[in-house]
């Protein structure tokens, strides 16, 4: 019995190690993190359990991000769902930026959701964030229910007819329905991780 328990424990450890390199997968638990926002306050994903969380990978130097911020895409959506238990978090994994830059971006663009200072790239790597923007929606149970592009208009120019996948996912989750499109290919500049 003792050797069987040891073998079972070894298998369990191996299984845990196998999944230790977390990447956000639709249908799986969202990778945990605790990281500081632009004002130095800790933001802990686990503490937000029970809310719907949107993670938006961002980079003020990226033309795709600038186009969306010019059109107020993210801000409008964040505002629309603010009173429906949705927490919007921007994440800046650009290696050459810092909290001061994030504060300046926030002031310049006039939005009120936090920008998480991930210039070390830890949260980006754990989610497998590839582009800016790259969007993730996490439900109240902490499960990833959407991963991918903000909409279907990578090149821009179709703002009025673009299909916003994050708006649809939030409509579905807040209505208690299954998310109709769970995964799309994200578009944007590559996340500027350190060399």
């Amino acid at each position, binding site marked *: 019995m003792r050797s069987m328990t040891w073998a079972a424990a070894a298998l369990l450890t191996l299984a845990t190690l196998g999944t230790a390199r977390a990447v956000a997968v639709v249908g799986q638990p969202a990778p945990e993190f605790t990281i500081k926002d632009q004002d130095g306050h800790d933001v802990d994903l686990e503490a937000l359990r029970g809310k719907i969380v949107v993670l938006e990978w961002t980079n003020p130097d990226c033309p795709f991000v600038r186009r969306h911020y010019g059109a107020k895409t993210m801000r409008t959506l964040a505002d629309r769902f603010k009173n429906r238990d949705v927490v919007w978090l921007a994440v800046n994994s650009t290696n050459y930026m810092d909290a001061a830059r994030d504060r300046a971006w926030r002031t310049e663009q006039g939005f009120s959701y936090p920008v998480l200072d991930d210039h070390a790239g830890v949260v980006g790597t754990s989610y497998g964030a590839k582009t800016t923007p790259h969007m993730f929606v996490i439900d109240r149970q902490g499960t990833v229910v959407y991963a991918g592009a903000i909409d279907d208009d990578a090149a821009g120019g179709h703002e009025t007819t673009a299909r916003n996948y994050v708006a649809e996912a939030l409509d579905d989750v807040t209505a208690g329905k299954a998310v109709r499109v769970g995964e799309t290919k994200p578009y944007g500049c590559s996340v*500027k991780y350190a060399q």
Partner: protein
Amino acid sequence: MRLLAALAVLFASASARAQEPSPVDARLVVRTQAVEPGKPFDVGVLLRVQPGWHIYWLNPGDAGLPTSVRWTVPEGFTAGALHWPVPQRFDQPGGVLGYGYTGAVLLGTTVTPPPTLAGDGSVAVRAEVGWLACEKICVRGRKTLDGTLGHAADGATSDPGLFTEWDSRIPVDPGNGDAPASLTARGGVPADGQAGTITVDVDWKRTPAAVEWFPPDDPALDVQAAQSRTDGGRTQLTFRAKRLSGQRPKQAVLESVIAYTDGSGVRRGLRVPINLDGKET
């Protein structure tokens, strides 16, 4: 003195705003300027990219934006699809893959005139070009290029040597007599969203070097874990793919490309069409 200082600051800040880098130059080129009724002719956009920067292929990879050229030709003329030369692969930090071009690339197309030419035989051609150029940061660019061929040729440089040079970098059809290899593919991608595995065997007439596979861009298909192994005269390419969220891939046949270096050290390409539902291509 204070006024001069203020003006200096004003000019400095204005030029700083205008200082967004402009690393791509685009110009219209043609194989020859002669146009004959019914006889197809080649036009193209030559893009030159500053060192350290790159622009993107038809499938940009994990990030980026495909370079685009929209052709406008006169009534009765038709412009075909762009001829995309064999791309390069960029491995960016964080495992972000890019496919595209450094240095220069000629994006050409074949234009077919009608059986009779109207007017004085001059043919106006317009190319609207768009790109995303990336280095440490990314910058979008666009340019409209106008040229005239035929009788009153103007605005488009005639350079047959340039076209010949770039002809050799267009991926060759495996069905052609002079194709460098033959292909067989097996496996498929299920309709239910589960991942499927596809294996392609490429049998080379002459063993090449530096074989690389480039997947096509299809927003509904997630291609992962591609591996290629070249042993003697055969490259075996294996990859997994799944349909995203119940979307139907836009094509039933995957138009992918294999890049290789031939015996003379020249980088060339082979079209690798793969049928997603496992049928023989």
